[in-house]
């Protein structure tokens, strides 16, 4: 048992740190450190920089052009990127669809799709959720009917994150209504420029445009865009979910945001107020405990024995911590969290702030963070899963 990273891991961390600090554009880091609005260009710029270095697909094996890092190395990269103020990698291409294409796609599909993902050129979206499905994902209804060498897709996806920028979308579609709901689902890649695809924004309670509805109206999809076999899509999607997911806890971002919380508390004069400071202290312990949990998972992965079955715990605690720091930032601002000036949440705003510039986005972030206990399998679903591990 040893808490310290190995000298090799330490050296790796320092190399990554140096590279990130040298290559992360300052203006982007500034936005991240101050929770200002990130544009498509911001995200894409960073993705391309990573892509050029070969680190956008930082979880990929070498055979597909990835760096072939260990679980610990991936964690160290994530931590260094987060602490430096890098935006989170938009996961739909490199983290979500790419592993499925690698595992179940044909060599042609791999050759066709992976380069654009690795370089950050092609923006992917995820088409899983539907209006009626929610936590019950397998109840999805979007149909894909095979007609010759094409599928005709009809239906609707929702909560499609950043689909307004999407060029391709990977979808779970229903190709059969026989048997259990899970057995009639296929995994299809769809070009979003195809006729019949419509994206409609969903405005969130914080006023932001982050998710969308995506409608499919007789959309023609070449059969060659089917991943693996028809009606086996559920298996592929589950493979994706079962993937190593310590990143779900987002503990590195939490560490960065805890620092921001302390800065805000200090400037608002509550850092020395014992009552408020205690709340930060509790959060700090939570974050250390979560980080220990993450490290335990990494250690188990590294040694290849005793895999820890605690992904549910990571999701629950990670999301609760995200909500809590955003809540405490808002409470640190107190009455000055009330003003809600959307322009003041953009970088380069020239107008007057109320109170201080740092306070402008706090309420919006708090509102936005309510999603974290809902998406990616709500925390209620996670509790079901955790209980299963304890009670059978």
């Amino acid at each position, binding site marked *: 048992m040893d808490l310290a990273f190995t000298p090799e891991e330490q050296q790796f961390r320092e190399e990554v740190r140096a590279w990130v600090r040298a290559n992360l554009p300052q203006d982007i880091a500034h936005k991240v450190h101050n929770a200002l609005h990130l544009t498509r260009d911001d995200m894409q710029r960073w993705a391309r920089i990573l892509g050029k270095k070969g680190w956008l697909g930082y979880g990929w094996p070498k055979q597909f052009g990835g760096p072939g890092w260990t679980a610990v190395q991936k964690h160290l990269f994530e931590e260094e990127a987060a602490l430096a103020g890098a935006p989170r990698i938009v996961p739909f291409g490199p983290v979500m669809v790419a592993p499925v294409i690698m595992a179940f796609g044909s060599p042609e599909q791999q050759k066709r799709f992976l380069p654009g993902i690795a370089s950050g050129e092609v923006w992917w979206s995820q088409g899983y959720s539907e209006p009626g499905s929610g936590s019950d994902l397998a109840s999805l209804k979007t149909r894909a009917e095979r007609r010759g060498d094409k599928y005709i897709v009809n239906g609707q996806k929702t909560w499609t994150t950043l689909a307004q920028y999407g060029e391709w979308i990977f979808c779970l579609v229903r190709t059969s209504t026989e048997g259990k709901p899970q057995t009639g689902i296929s995994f299809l890649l769809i070009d979003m420029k195809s006729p019949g695809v419509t994206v409609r924004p969903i405005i969130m*309670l914080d006023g932001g445009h982050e998710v969308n509805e995506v409608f499919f109206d007789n959309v023609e999809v070449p059969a060659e865009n089917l991943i693996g076999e028809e009606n086996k899509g559920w298996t592929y999607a589950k493979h994706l979910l079962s993937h190593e997911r310590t990143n779900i806890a987002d503990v590195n971002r939490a560490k960065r945001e805890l620092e921001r919380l302390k800065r805000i508390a200090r400037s608002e004069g509550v850092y020395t107020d014992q009552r408020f400071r205690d709340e930060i202290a509790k959060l700090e312990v939570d974050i250390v405990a979560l980080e220990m949990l993450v490290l335990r998972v990494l250690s188990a992965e590294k040694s290849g024995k005793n895999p820890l079955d605690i992904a549910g715990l990571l999701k629950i605690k990670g999301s609760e911590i995200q909500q809590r720091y955003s809540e405490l930032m808002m409470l640190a601002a107190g009455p000055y969290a009330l003003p809600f000036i959307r322009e003041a949440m953009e970088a380069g705003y020239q107008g007057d702030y109320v109170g201080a510039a740092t306070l402008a986005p706090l309420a919006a972030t708090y509102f936005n963070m309510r999603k974290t206990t809902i998406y990616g399998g709500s925390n209620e679903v996670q509790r079901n899963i955790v209980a299963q591990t304890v009670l059978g």
Partner: protein
Amino acid sequence: MDFNFSDEQEQLRDAVRKWVDRSYTFERRQGIAKAGGFDRSAYNELAELGLTGLYVPEDHGGMGMGPVEAMVVLEELGRGIVLEPLGATLVASGVIAAYAPEALKSQWLPKIASGEALVVLAYQERKARYRLDVCEATATQAGSGWKLSGEKSLVPAGDQADAFLVPAKANGKIALFLVERNAQGVSTRGYPTMDEARAAEVKFQDAAATLVTADGLAALQHAVDVGIACTCAEGVGVIDRTMELTAEYMNTRKQFGVTLATFQALRHRMADMKMQQELARSMSYYASLKLNAPVEERLRAMARAKYQLGVAMRFVGQNSVQLHGGIGVTDEYVGSHYFKKLTALELVYGDTLHHLGEVSQRMQDTAGVFA
């Protein structure tokens, strides 16, 4: 000991509820929100119902009603998440009626009652957080009147108001003044707030001011306590409607072939929310019924009430969103606006930690409702 509403109070409630249901629809509300968060014609409709004169004595053209009536009205406005700040009017008219010299009363109270004048308290300063004794604004005598200088923040509908009640230091002691918005040296900068209502930063530079009372801190404490009682009542209304929306959704939305209301874990969450709802209502009653108690008892009661409401509003708001799932975080859905209102109400007139501090500091040996 009687918590029944009189027939008159029930009629008042019905009248306000009818107005909300028929005239202040969600569509209209969102229109007002997009247009800036305050609509004078909607405010005038409140005036037509007599509500702006609720705290104005009858001989000044008002209804001369008390805290219970105010509570009834604010609950209903909370149910409708009405943007126009009637509570602010009650605060201002209550303070003027209780502290202002007769001339000032005669000049302003009738106009407040009729809705002609919107008068609001402008007390928040950047360095004060929730403390009432921190005041950097100053007033100096100038002839028969006063000149006031300073900056006040987060003034409700501050760029729409006709006059402000402003605490400022006069000869080293906080006094309360009235300043008209059109007076020279007054400038405002309006903006929307997190609950889609409106507020403003207000600057006073040697602005002509009229003295309301030299005992400004007492008046300010009283004003804030009226504000707390109003906020508690409004919070109860918002909670009530939130609970209805959530129950409705849980009985409709299906997952895994059954309604959400089928899942015991979610049912228990609703039970916990119901607990907070009833504790909140209880403490809102308590606040309104203690509003005329002796000062120390009143301050203690208001801190207890606002603390409890803070806890309840946050719990109900957050869990309502959670129980709704995705739909609960969309702008389109009415419920998310209730959540934002609950969040905002926690932050006005002292947040939950602030009032915990007040309760803690004001604690006595014996406890209970009558202690």
